């Protein structure tokens, strides 16, 4: 099955490259540890056999589309990743006709670390009910049978249940660790500003210090800038070298946006995101 998916992707890649439909196919290949996967950019048919797909293919490759805006590119996208394509289309960052989406019906991916691939599905995959990409041009794989999703926000609810002081202590400890390597930002398909607020000198919102106060503003505003935009690929948390639970923040906001506005990022390229619109009569716990 796994091999088959890689082959199907490879065949499609061969067809797309040889017909000149795209210039490059972004997919996965085996990493140098022989266990995990890594992104692969295929420019010629001679490399299509390197393409693989299995449950270690955790990267969200859609971020790379931003580096290839003006070139025709095919990208392998899992359902969660595919939402990023809608996000980027909605935010006019990419053109639909320049992107060929090789969608993968996804059974979930595993937690991986260098040299290790987990046995069980990632927690988010266990909660996932989107097994088919929301947008694609060609689909490989087979979605697993639908199952009622369990409580999706158990960890968020648990955190909400704690006292303010406990929450503050928890996050302070998390943010204190941050070394501002910006891997979370660099890997995020939604973080594509040419100059991030955190690195701007004028106005000087945040200084260069890798220190708790700066770290807090950085992490808070990073999360805020993803309100209604985070598509839940979890890449930020995966790449964090200091294991800061960034997705907990993202998912808290995702939950709020869903509850308040019934909106989920990236489900369609046309839906109006929550901060682009409003309802006159909405009750949001403000000024009421």
């Amino acid at each position: 099955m796994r091999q088959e998916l890689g082959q199907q992707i490879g065949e499609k890649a061969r067809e797309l490259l040889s017909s000149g439909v795209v210039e490059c196919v972004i997919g996965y290949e085996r990493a140098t540890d022989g266990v995990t996967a890594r992104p692969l950019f295929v420019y010629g048919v001679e490399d299509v056999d390197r393409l693989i797909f299995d449950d270690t293919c955790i990267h969200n490759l859609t971020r790379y589309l931003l580096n290839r805006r003006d070139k025709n590119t095919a990208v392998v996208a899992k359902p969660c990743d595919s939402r990023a394509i809608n996000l980027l289309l909605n935010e006019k960052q990419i053109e639909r006709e320049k992107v060929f989406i090789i969608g993968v019906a996804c059974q979930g991916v595993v937690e991986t670390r260098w040299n290790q691939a987990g046995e069980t599905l990632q927690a988010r995959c266990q909660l996932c009910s989107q097994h088919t990409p929301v947008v694609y041009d060609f689909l490989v794989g087979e979605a697993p049978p639908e199952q009622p999703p369990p409580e999706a926000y158990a960890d968020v609810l648990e955190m909400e249940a704690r006292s303010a002081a406990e929450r503050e202590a928890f996050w302070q400890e998390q943010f204190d660790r941050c070394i501002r390597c910006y891997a979370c930002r660099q890997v995020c398909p939604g973080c594509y500003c040419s100059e991030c607020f955190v690195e701007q000198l004028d106005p000087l919102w945040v200084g260069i210090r890798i220190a708790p106060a700066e770290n807090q503003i950085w992490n808070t505003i990073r999360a805020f800038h993803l309100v209604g935009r985070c598509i839940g690929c979890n890449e930020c948390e995966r790449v964090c070298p200091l294991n800061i639970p960034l997705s907990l923040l993202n998912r808290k906001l995702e939950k709020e946006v869903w509850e308040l506005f019934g909106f989920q990022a990236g489900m369609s390229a046309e839906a109006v995101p929550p901060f682009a619109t409003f309802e006159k009569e909405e009750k949001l716990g403000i000024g009421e």
Partner: protein
Amino acid sequence: MAVEYQPRMVGFLCNWCSYAGADMAGTSRMTYPPNIRIIRVPCSGRVDPLLVMKSFEQGADGVLVSGCHPGDCHYTEGNYHARRRFALLRSLLDFLGIEKERLRVEWVSASEGGRFKELVSSFTEELQRLGPRSEVSP
């Protein structure tokens, strides 16, 4: 008896309604605690969450964002956008352990001097009840 804890507050007030409402409170000689520092903005929708975060970083115990009542915005829609933005920011801050109560978003019209006075007074009391924010080491 110990000196009562004096919280620090920043208020971002829209020029057309709430700033004028604060003017009205003064003109009517309504007194309220002197803890608030007011920053005039054209519209509550102008307030970037970064300004709120910087205020907290600067040492504010509470931040007030105030604009026209829904439907009254001088720019027709600014306060609706502010409402969405700050509803989310409040949830996020609360989740991070900065109590929701520390970020107040309220509607005060140009004629509501009394409402402004009440607002600052009750906010001050609320912050006194919550106590100082825990220090984030610099």
